[in-house]
Every structure is written in C-alpha cells, then in structure tokens.
C-alpha cells in the first residue's frame, strides 16, 4: 500500500503540473504597458513554486516508497547532515528566492501604484454602486463638477449627484454606462463608490483595485490594443455582485473622439 501511495502522490503531482506547462488555463493576453512586468513576475514565481512543489512531493513519495514496512530488524538511519543542513539549506535557498521575488516584484507594483500618472494623463471618473459602474468624462473644461450625494437619483439618471444648474464645472461633464479609452493614451482613473465596497477588475489590463467607501482611490494605466473587454466587480457587494459588470472599449483616438462627441450629445 505504501508503494501505491508513493505512486499516487507522484501521479497527482504530475497531473497537477500538466495544465500549467500546457498553459491550458491562463490569463488572457496583456493589453497594458505595465502588464508584462506582472506576467514576468508570475512566470518566475510559477517556475520557482513549481520546482518546489514537484521536488517536495517527489521526495515525500520516494521516502514513503523506500522506508515503509521495513523488516523488524532493519536499522534506523538518520539523514546525513541532520537538521542543521536542512535549516541552512532552507534559509539559503528559500531565503534568497523570496528575497529575489520580493525585490524584483517591487518594480511591477511600483509601476502601477508608486509612480504618479503623467501630467497629460486623461482623467476618467468611475463610480461603483449596487450593481453597476458609471463613468464620467470631464468635458471640454477638463474639470469634474462636485458630487452631491443627496442628489443621486437613479430614476432621473443623475447617477453621480451632479447639480448642473448651479455648478458650472458639472455642465459639460459626460456620464456614460460604458467606458471607452483611446489606445496608447495614459488614463488616470479616479475611483469613487456611492454605497459599498466594490472593485474594478479588467483581466486584460492587469488592473484590480477596490473602491473604498469614503475614500477616493486612483489608478493609472495605458491600454495598447483595440478591443472590448469586461470590467467586473470582485468585492462582494450584495446579491447582484455576480452581475455587476461593464465594458471597456479601447479605440483609436479618432473613434474615441467621435464616441465622446456622441455621448456628449446624449447628455
């Protein structure tokens, strides 16, 4: 039975690794300028974790195979080097590995979170609420009008609580239910929630960030491929959480300008 167990462990380890090696289920192609750093970090971690996983399972299986059900008079042996060698090996190998992963990983993180958006990044505000996203473009004046929570009213489609009669900055704001961005243009996303915690996740953009009630959070990214991508909520926000989504359309600059004009006309 011990030998069968050892073989089972090895078979499970190999079967588990096959979908990874064959890239059966992977994230879709990256469409951002920063995403390749995350993908590289992911591949390096996969290589190191994969080797650790296979090595640990194989050694476990081999020792179970070799040292189970030995005859009564068999001698007990100790691993040469003892615990000391293992502790030193763990500190050296795992220590260096985690230090390297940690240090190199800082670059990918810093690209998204620690560097400010460039001065000419295009501001877009996204508002999350049970169970929809709404987007706001500042219009020709380049400034968002203030939000008045008491004026938020879904039936009059005043999703952001804008007071266009009194706030000059709000007059030209363009509110949409879908998000569009021009290709190769940095976007500065200003994230605001009107009710609960939500999240903004676009797999292709390699972007995920929670909305925090009471705090305005921001993100910046540059999309590099024309197409239509799903924006989904990843923070449990109530019964409609599974259905809270919108689309992000990445367009050529010309298409984007046309789209924005059309949206402005619909306000």
């Amino acid at each position: 039975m011990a030998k069968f167990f050892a073989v089972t462990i090895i078979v499970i380890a190999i079967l588990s690794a096959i979908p990874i090696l064959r890239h059966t289920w992977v994230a879709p192609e990256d469409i951002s300028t920063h995403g390749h750093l995350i993908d590289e970090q992911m591949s390096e971690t996969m290589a190191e974790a994969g080797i650790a996983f296979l090595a640990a399972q194989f050694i476990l299986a081999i020792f179970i195979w070799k040292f189970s059900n030995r005859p009564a008079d068999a001698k007990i042996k100790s691993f040469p080097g003892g615990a000391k060698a293992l502790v030193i090996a763990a500190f050296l190998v795992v220590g260096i590995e985690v230090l390297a992963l940690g240090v190199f990983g800082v670059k990918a993180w810093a690209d998204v979170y620690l560097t400010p958006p460039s001065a000419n990044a295009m501001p877009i505000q996204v508002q999350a609420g049970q169970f929809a996203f709404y987007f706001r473009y500042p219009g020709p004046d380049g400034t968002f009008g203030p939000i008045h929570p008491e004026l938020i009213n879904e039936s009059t489609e005043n999703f952001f609580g804008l007071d266009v009669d009194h706030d000059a900055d709000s007059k030209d704001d363009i509110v949409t239910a879908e998000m569009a961005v021009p290709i190769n243009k940095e976007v500065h996303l200003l994230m605001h929630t009107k009710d609960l915690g939500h999240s903004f996740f676009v797999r292709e953009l390699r972007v995920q960030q929670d909305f925090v009630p009471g705090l305005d959070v921001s993100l910046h990214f540059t999309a590099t491929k024309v197409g239509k991508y799903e924006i989904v909520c990843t923070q449990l926000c109530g019964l409609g959480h599974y259905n809270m989504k919108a689309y992000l359309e990445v367009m050529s600059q010309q298409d984007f300008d046309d789209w924005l004009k059309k949206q402005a006309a619909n306000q």
Partner: protein
Amino acid sequence: MSVHAAHHAPTSFIRKHVFSLDHKVIGKQYYALALVAAMVGMFLSWLMRIHLAWTNAAIPGLQLLSANGAPGGVMTPEYYLQLMTMHGTIMVFFVLTTAPFAAFGNFFLPIQVGAEDMPFPRFNMMSFWVTFTAFIVLMASFFVSDGPTLGGWTQYAPLNAVGPLAGPGQGMGVILWMASIAIFCVGQLLGSLNFITTTLDLRVKGMSLMRLPLSAWAWFITSCMGLTAFAVLMPACILAILDHVAGTSFFVPSNLVISGQLLPHSGGSTLLWQHLFWFFGHPEVYIAIVPGIGIVSHILLANMRRPMLSQRVLIYCMGALAVLSYMVYGHHMFVSGMNPYSSLAFSFPTLAITIPATITVLIWTFSLYGSKLRINAASLFALGFISMFVSGGVSGFFLAQPSIDIMLHATYFVVGHFHLVMAVAAMFGIFAGTYFWFPKMAGRMMNETLGKAHFWLSFVGAYCIFMPFHYLGMAGNVRRYSTFVDDYLQPLIPVHRFITVAALLTGCAQLIFLYNLIHSRFWGKPAPDNPWEATSLEWSTATPPPFDNFGGKHPIVYHDPYQYGVQSSVGDYVMQASPEQVKTEHDEK
C-alpha cells in the same frame, strides 16, 4: 509539581455528560460539536457546488429550507451568498478552530503534561457551553425572516454595518453573526487561558518544556495566538453591532447612498474593519493549522519509529509561524485601497513566513529517511497532510506578492490556496488525530480497512476539487459569484462541473468515516492501553483514562517525548514515564 484535581468524580448524568468539569468529556463535547458543524458545512458546500455547476437546476427539497431563498428548489443569488457565508463561518470557526485545538487539546493536553485536569475546570466547562451557544446563535440566523447574512465569512464593512438596505440578511442576519462570533471569542479566550496555564503550571515532575510532546507545544502556541487574536475580533464584532443598533458609525463613512437613501452615518472607516478583522484573521488560519502540525508530527513519530531530525527546530518553527502571523495580515489587503507602501511592508514578512514553513516540511520529510514507517489510517492521513500542506503552501508564494495579487486577488486561486493549506490539511490533521487517538478516547479501535478507504477517496478527491480552483483563478475566475454570467467565464463552466462531481463524491466518502466512527464507538474491538507502541503520557494510562487521568498515581517523566528506535525491555521504544535507562543513538544532533 504536584497536581490535584479541583473536583471529584461526578455521579449524576448531567454532571457527568452534560455540564461536566472533566476536560476529557469537554474535549469529546467539542469534537461532537465540530462533527455536527462539519456535516452542516459540508452539506452547504454541496448545495453551493450544485448551484455553481448547474445554476438553474432545482434541488429537490431545498425550498423546504428556505421558501424565499430557493423558490421551487432553485437557489436565488442572495441565497447562494447566504449559504456561502454560513459555510465559511461554520467551517473556520466551529470546525477548524474547534476540532484540532479545543477538542483534541482539551482531551490530551492535560494528560500529555501529566495533570489531573485543567487548572480552571469551571472556565473550561463554560468555554464549551459558550461555544455551543455561539453555534446555536449562528444557526438561528437561518430562521429569521430574511435569513443569514450574505456578506461572506470576512463580513467586510460597510456591508456589515448598514442594515437591511444593503440586501437580505444584512439586518438581523448580520447582528446574529456578529453576536455569535463575539460569543465564540469568549469561549476561545477562556479555553486559551486554561491551555496556557495547564502547560506552564501543571506539568508533572520531569516534564520540562522541551520534554513536552510536539502536539502539546502546538496547542500551547495556538492558545497564545488565540488569546491575542480573539481579543481583537470580539470588540470589532461588538462595534459592528453598535453600528446597527446604537446609531454609531465605526465602520460607515459619510455620504453613502444605498437604495436611493442617504445614510445618516458619518465619520467611520471601512478599512478599520479590514485591519481589525485580518489582525485576527491571519493568526486564525495558523490557529487552524498549527495544532495540525503538532498532531501530525506526534502521529508520524509513533509511526516512523525514530525521533524527529530535530524536535527543537520544529518547536521554533511553530513559534515563528505564530509570531510572523501577526505581521503578514496586510497581504489580504494589497488592493484594498490601503497605502501601497504598506503592501510592500506586508509582502516581505509574508514571503519570509515561507522559511519556517519550509523547514517544517523538510524536517518531516527528511525524518522519514531511514525510518521504519508503518502505514495505517492515521499515518496515511498524516502523510497526506504533508502533501496537502505543500500543495497549498506553494500557492502562497504568489499571493504574498502585491504585483501578482493584482491578478489573483478575489479569484478562485485564493479559494484553492486556503482550502488546501488550511482547510483540507487541517481536516487531514483532524482525521489523523481521530484514527490515532480514538482508541484512547473511546476505549475501542476503529476499523482500519474503512479508515484506509476513507483516506484514499479523500486524498484523491481533495486534489480533484481544489487543484482546479487554482487554474480557474489563473484564468481570472472571480470568487463569490453565484452565477457565471460574464462572457469570459463561459469556457470555465465545465471545470466547475468537474469540481462539483468531485465534491459530491468526496463528500459521500466522509460518510464512511462517520459510519466507522459511530460503529467503532459501540462495536469496535476493545483497545489496549498502548495500541501504537507510543511513548507519550497518554499511552501510559488506562484506556479509556480514569477520571483523574492516572488513577491517583502521578507519573514521573524520565525521557524526551519520542524515544523510538532504541532497545528497551518492551521493544524499540521507551515511554516517557518509564524509569528504564536506554542507550539513545538517534537523539537530536
């Protein structure tokens, strides 16, 4: 130290079996509670898995559980979330915390240190009945008008504090959840206090700290974590209740508009809840797994017939896991809106915690080298624990890094990770403990053939369920969705169906265990005092142990806990309480 039981053997049924002060009865009560909770939790997971694989399928009889939640047997999205929340809460608190720590710890910690009982038996009795009350309060939420809370076992703010406006179950459901967990914390605090004092004050003559078995060390370290972690969660729950009933705003900021209504709250912080919750929550996963590490070490040693490569290093590793567990909690919050520099600060200790975890695995694995491994149901589950702990542990590498977490946060990758490393591994620890200690607890042997069948189905089944979760997560499949309506999720639905079938079959395999447990309890072969030829004090006493554990004679400890692979008058081991002098060749280097 001389130890006297603070009470006499009871004679009435109620004092003997219900409100008992005997740590052994309390341990069994905890075990029974965990067993009931595990069955409820598993049943809920079946319902969830069926719904995820076949969303519109009517589950016969489900409407009887909740007419609103499952009209005609078809689960609504909110009911899915309610069941999911209850599954997580029941499993984490009432199974993974209760069984390996409170159940086995209560029964065996005093015996392993040579004590007659815990120092505060009344507190001990209270700790169980308080925990039982917490379970009843949680279950009661199934029966309130709009059912249990749907906020997940993490109960994030402000969903947990704004009341029924936010959805079904967010009124009374949340209040009952918070009350239940606050009560649960009281039980754990009382239990931890007892465990710590038992270990420090009630050891018999010769039982130095380094002579404590690894299981006793694990319970001691866990109780230190319990004392600090539950002490933070309890006030957090009370503050959340106040936000509901007293109009406070601890977790609710100003200007929130829910269902068209501007809330009257102002000034609270939603991230405050996350910090408080995870300051408890991350140590909690170690509270669930460290007893498993100790139990598995204890069982492996008896079955390897040799000492650990280093007992001392394993103890230090468990200690390091406990200390580091408080410094890593922020990895749950990388993309939460917390300061991004904090994410980096939390990332390094999270990566560093891999070192003690790796050393633990290496010590186990390389202690197998040159051993005389016995294969039985207990050792199979202990070895399975190592395999699961490794498989779930390596995915921690990914989640420890904020940049990768951007892609994997809140996906099924996380679900796969914590189920393998914490839930399945801890369950394997519980099973290993049951097969190993059942003879001492019940006085009868369990059926080995059924035990092995249970192991094979559980081992293969658990991998079939939880390994694919990682793949789903890598493809971006978000967790906590009741239905997969997004375009990109459609190709992943067959994987969910595979997982559901595996979960149903693996769940059925647990019925073998249940049958074995009940059948062996009444009709199993009578157990000898030391069926595994083991060395620690629980095997020096009668089976089952008398009321005062050692029949009025206090044992004296002469040896380290795991003197296997020696030549003595009884065989290849010498018991801790045996005065026989033996030559040890394989002691720690």
